[in-house]
């Protein structure tokens, strides 16, 4: 309403998801992987293990390259995408978390500097200093995860912030700790998986030791994830009900996540067990398969997290601040009483007499403002297939009770007349229904 809405046929949500899951995956790998590097380097230095040091040397460069390049560019992509798809949400998050982000920027700078120094100074720094750089890299990565966890968990459970507007309440929100536990375990598991995926680059006799070490990271973390996830769902309002079936997509995502995690654990254990007898088990394909499964686990987890928030960008069904359509609760209440389009700054015909704007244009504006947060016309979550063949009256009835539908939608933010206009617009999308005739009937 306040900002223009980007008409993106693939769906803004899908675009954000593509960047968010990739960035989250790389970020978790970066945190767990830098911890893995630091602890493994300490072990190699203590034991004087030259083979392990040789692998760490090449691993450090590859790891820095992958995490810095993919991590920073996907992070920039995510940042630009959320600003274009959900300007109101981004603006609100900035107002609350600007300084947290500013601290994050400092941590990113330290992480990048440490990664660059670490990979390029094996011949220059003494072992203690080099290990110190590795520890700095891991510590900065870990702290950045803590910071981002505060923001991400706030988006689901703003908790007391809704009343107090205090940053402390926003950051240490009801799901902060269980969410941090889930993310830490995820990072450790993925750090181990990255070692799996690159162990084939080590000397053949080192590979079994390497994957066993990676297994000691990945398997316990995967085993502990269900407990952490349960703690998280328990802390989140109506989360258990949502993943239990109340929100079908969250339930599907949970099943996919669990299946991928189980497969990942089985494959990781098998590779670790087979590595000594069949060194070919430690290979690029198995490594990529493990990372792929790890990606699915993380994608499922992020999808569940996003589903639980619905219909809010900031909030959850038991209390929220900003709906996915970019309206605050207070704004939505006002527009339901007094109309949406008169307050929509980017609607058709600003500066023109109202009679110049026909109902089709008004319907398109209403769809853009009220529905485009989640739906497209024919692309991702396309509205056409949901409304085709339905009468105007049926669509109007659905719009009247959006917030009681499965899938958790925001209530329609317009008045009765606007709802009828939108119903006629949606009914006429397929060109088969004469938009006006059934609408008049429904209106009477």
């Amino acid at each position, binding site marked *: 309403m306040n900002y223009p809405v980007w008409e993106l046929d693939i769906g803004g949500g899908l675009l954000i998801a593509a960047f968010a899951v990739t960035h989250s995956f790389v970020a978790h790998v970066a945190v767990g992987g830098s911890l893995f590097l630091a602890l493994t380097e300490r072990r*190699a230095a203590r034991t004087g293990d030259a083979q392990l040091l040789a692998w760490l040397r090449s691993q450090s460069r590859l790891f820095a390259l992958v995490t810095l390049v993919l991590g920073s560019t996907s992070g920039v992509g995510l940042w630009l995408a959320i600003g274009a798809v959900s300007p109101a949400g981004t603006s609100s998050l900035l*107002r609350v978390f600007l300084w947290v982000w500013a601290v994050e920027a400092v941590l990113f700078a330290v992480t990048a500097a440490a990664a660059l120094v670490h990979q390029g100074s094996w011949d220059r720094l003494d072992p203690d200093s080099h290990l110190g750089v590795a520890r700095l890299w891991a510590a900065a990565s870990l702290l950045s995860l803590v910071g981002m966890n505060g923001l991400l968990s706030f988006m689901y459970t703003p908790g007391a912030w809704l009343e107090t507007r205090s940053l402390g309440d926003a950051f240490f929100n009801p799901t902060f700790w269980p969410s941090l536990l889930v993310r830490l375990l995820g990072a450790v598991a993925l750090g181990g998986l990255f070692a799996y995926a690159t162990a084939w680059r080590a000397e053949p006799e080192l590979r079994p030791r390497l994957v066993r070490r990676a297994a000691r990271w990945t398997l316990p973390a995967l085993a502990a994830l269900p407990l952490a996830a349960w703690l998280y769902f328990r802390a989140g309002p109506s989360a258990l009900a949502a993943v239990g079936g109340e929100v079908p997509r969250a339930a599907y995502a949970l099943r996919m996540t669990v299946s991928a995690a189980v497969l990942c654990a089985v494959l990781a254990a098998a590779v670790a067990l087979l590595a000594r007898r069949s060194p070919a088990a430690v290979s690029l394909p198995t490594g990529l398969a493990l990372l792929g499964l790890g990606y699915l686990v993380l994608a499922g987890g992020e999808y569940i997290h996003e589903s639980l928030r619905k219909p809010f960008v900031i909030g959850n069904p038991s209390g929220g601040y900003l709906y996915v359509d970019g309206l605050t609760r207070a704004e939505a209440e006002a527009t339901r009483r007094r109309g949406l389009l008169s307050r929509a700054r980017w609607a058709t015909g600003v500066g023109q007499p109202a009679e110049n704007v026909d109902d089709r244009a008004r319907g398109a504006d209403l769809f853009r403002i009220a529905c485009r947060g989640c739906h497209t016309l024919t692309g991702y979550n396309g509205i056409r297939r949901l409304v085709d063949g339905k009468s105007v009256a049926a669509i109007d009835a659905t719009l009247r009770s959006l917030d009681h539908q499965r899938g958790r939608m925001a209530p329609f933010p317009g008045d009765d007349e606007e709802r009828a206009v939108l119903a006629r617009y949606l009914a006429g999308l397929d060109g088969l229904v004469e938009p006006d005739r059934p609408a008049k009937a429904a209106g009477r």
Partner: protein
Amino acid sequence: MSGPLVIPAPDALPLPAPAWLLSPLLVLLFAVHAAAMSVALGGAFWAAWFGRHPGHPRRRELAGLVGRTLPHWTAAAITSGVAALLFLQVLYGPVFFAAAVVAAVPWLAVPPLLLLGYAGAWVRALRHQDSPLVAQWAGVGSWVALAAVAFLFVHQATLLLHPENHYALYQLRPSGVHLDLSDPALWPRFLHMVVGATAVAALWVAGLGVRAIGRGEEEAGRFAVAAGARGFAWSTLVQMVVGAWFLLALPPTVRSRFTGDGPSATGLLAAAVVLALLAMRLAWRAARSRRPGREVWAAATCLAVVLLLMALARDVVRRALLGQAVDPAALPAAPQWGMVALFALALAAGAAAIGWMASRLARATAPPAPGAPRRGAPGRG
């Protein structure tokens, strides 16, 4: 294209600090970003320029030396850029986000281009010895991609200054495909960035030469200083012409602030021009000097001040064009002073951590000669 002036209302939540604190931080962070971005973008140009003659060993060596630093500067440019963007968004959110939606497609082309530029910088750095041709073309590709990113940022920064165009463009096509080239200041502004980056990076090349001389690599160092200093001087000369074009392309009401009507803006521009000329003079001297360190450092100091002055001038242009329509000073604030203190602490700790690593590297021995034992090198015990 202009239509009704439609500007989103400011966010209902208050600013997390007063505008008098956020605005200077935006200027400062942008200056830091401009410095890092300039070395990354201009450095990619100079690495390609010196590497264009593979048969010339001195040039090739210098291309490798410059190319090795590019991933570092690209990382610094991205990190500082994100920080500057945060402050820009929080202060000018209404016009920033509106412009981001109106031109969403070009804006979202930034991440893939940045990926190409950054990955190209790494390939340039890592493949210089074993595949010089691959390194050279990766470097050229990196420069082109980063220049395209610079153009898209300039486009976004220009578009946000013209809220009078946003509504009409959006109504024309709400699919975010607009590339608004109507502002006469767009191209000179872009060239101002690119040529400026070339100049800054050239001075960086001269700085690398000074370091090489310090290490006892007299001949290579002297070559780098001469090449960098000349590159800086010529780029700065071109920049003067581009800068004049940029000034002339600004709307008269804004331009007049820099040409006498606004004493502080005029002073800013005059000081920047004088310091740039001084830096140019110092660079010429460095190119001929036997001990060029002092001249290069003095020129770099002048240039750092010029960057800060240019960031301030940019702020003047932004305020002049947006006027009262978006005035951060008028926004309510609920300062999070505890977090401001934590940020200051984090900044100090981060600087200390990076300083510690730099001091360790400075104290460390130079990289071992080829064939010498290397820690963790494959095949060695």
